[in-house]
């Protein structure tokens, strides 16, 4: 197990005050919060930060952690000392770190994972019912266009009778509803936590996001594609092949089309009672003037066309 330098994670000195630690946490939390951040590994960084803060903001945990010194050199194997944790009391963990599954092995070896099953107050709706779980998954565009089954693997914390936490994989095969949109939520009844003792398990709520598609982008129920066309195809009109999620189709480009022209294929977006549309946005691609023949063609065009592309700029 690797030693974690929580001071380094939070970018504070080992003698930082409580106020400095809180300030550093707030600043980094705003930077890495998964709902706000666009950093690629925001989720992981935010978890690490939450863990560091959970230790450093608690005087007991921080004192216990400081006992370890600055730890072995980075990457070196770490074992808690045999007398670890004696003489310290650990209170209930506050918010900030998410669920127990968010903790690293390092954290759990020091502080265990013991934590009540309830995260927030306000329970007591059904005492014999397990907690609802929340998760987020990434879907491919095909899943919403065609519907179908997808398999997800979620990590779930398990608390045993002695309060030890381990992480189990929860593999789910899910019937994806056709027409589901990014940001929407699905519920899987009975796939949440088992209650302690008798009762029914909670539900699992999954919020879906979509992997960016190499060709299409989603806006509401509509799909957009940028389609390159040659200057003469745009000027004279043409029938060209365009990809669509249901396979290539022939698309008629009207004469006089220009860069940014939007062509609509009705009802070929994300399916629904009134399905979205498929929009093709034209881009003009210039053929390279790489050889004598091509250069001659450009010169001929320059001579034949009295064209000033900057006329609207007054020059």
């Amino acid at each position: 197990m690797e030693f974690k330098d929580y001071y380094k994670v939070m970018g504070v000195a080992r003698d930082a005050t409580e106020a400095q630690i809180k300030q550093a946490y707030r600043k980094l939390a705003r930077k890495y919060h998964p709902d706000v951040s666009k950093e690629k590994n925001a989720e992981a960084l935010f978890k690490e930060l939450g863990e560091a803060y959970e230790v450093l903001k608690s005087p007991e945990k921080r004192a216990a952690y400081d006992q370890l010194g600055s730890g072995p050199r980075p990457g070196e194997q770490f074992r808690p000392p045999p007398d670890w944790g004696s003489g310290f009391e650990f209170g209930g963990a506050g918010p900030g770190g998410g669920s127990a599954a968010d903790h690293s092995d390092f954290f759990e070896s020091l502080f265990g994972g013991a934590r009540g099953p309830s995260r927030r107050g306000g329970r007591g709706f059904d005492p014999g019912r397990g907690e609802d779980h929340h998760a987020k998954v990434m879907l491919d565009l095909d899943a919403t266009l065609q519907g179908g089954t997808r398999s997800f693997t979620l990590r779930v914390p398990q608390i045993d009778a002695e309060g030890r936490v381990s992480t189990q994989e929860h593999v789910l095969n899910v019937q994806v509803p056709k027409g589901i949109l990014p940001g929407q939520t699905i519920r899987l009844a009975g796939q949440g936590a088992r209650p302690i003792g008798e009762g029914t398990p909670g539900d699992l709520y999954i919020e879906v996001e979509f992997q960016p598609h190499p060709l299409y982008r989603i806006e509401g129920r509509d799909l957009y594609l940028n389609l390159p066309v040659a200057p003469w195809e745009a000027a004279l009109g043409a029938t060209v092949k365009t990809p669509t999620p249901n396979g290539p189709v022939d698309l008629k480009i009207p004469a006089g089309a220009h860069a940014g022209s939007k062509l609509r294929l009705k009802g070929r977006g994300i399916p629904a009672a009134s399905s979205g549309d498929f929009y093709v946005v034209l881009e003009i691609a210039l053929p390279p003037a790489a050889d004598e023949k091509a250069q001659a063609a450009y010169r001929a065009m320059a001579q034949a066309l009295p064209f000033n592309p900057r006329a609207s700029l007054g020059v």
Partner: protein
Amino acid sequence: MPNHEALRVELFDDRTELTLHDLCRVFAVEERHIVEMVEEGVLSVIEIDTTEWRFSGAALRRARIALRLERDLGINLPGVALALELLEELEQLRRTRQG
């Protein structure tokens, strides 16, 4: 334990109607908390002809983000409402820039 059969799911979309009680249960929060979110404009209520509040499926995502921002960043509800508005605007801008 792996499930080999595909699980049927319930989709929450813009046709879904959730009650105040539903939202409280999903997020394990007290009614007062959701009511405050409505008052601050974090969540909006569907206008229908009934005395009971109804929320669309989109409320689930907004409520989840709001609760997390409150908890993780210590922002109060007016701040959360502002953050959500700005996030939406940012998303819109990013999308149009892509195109």
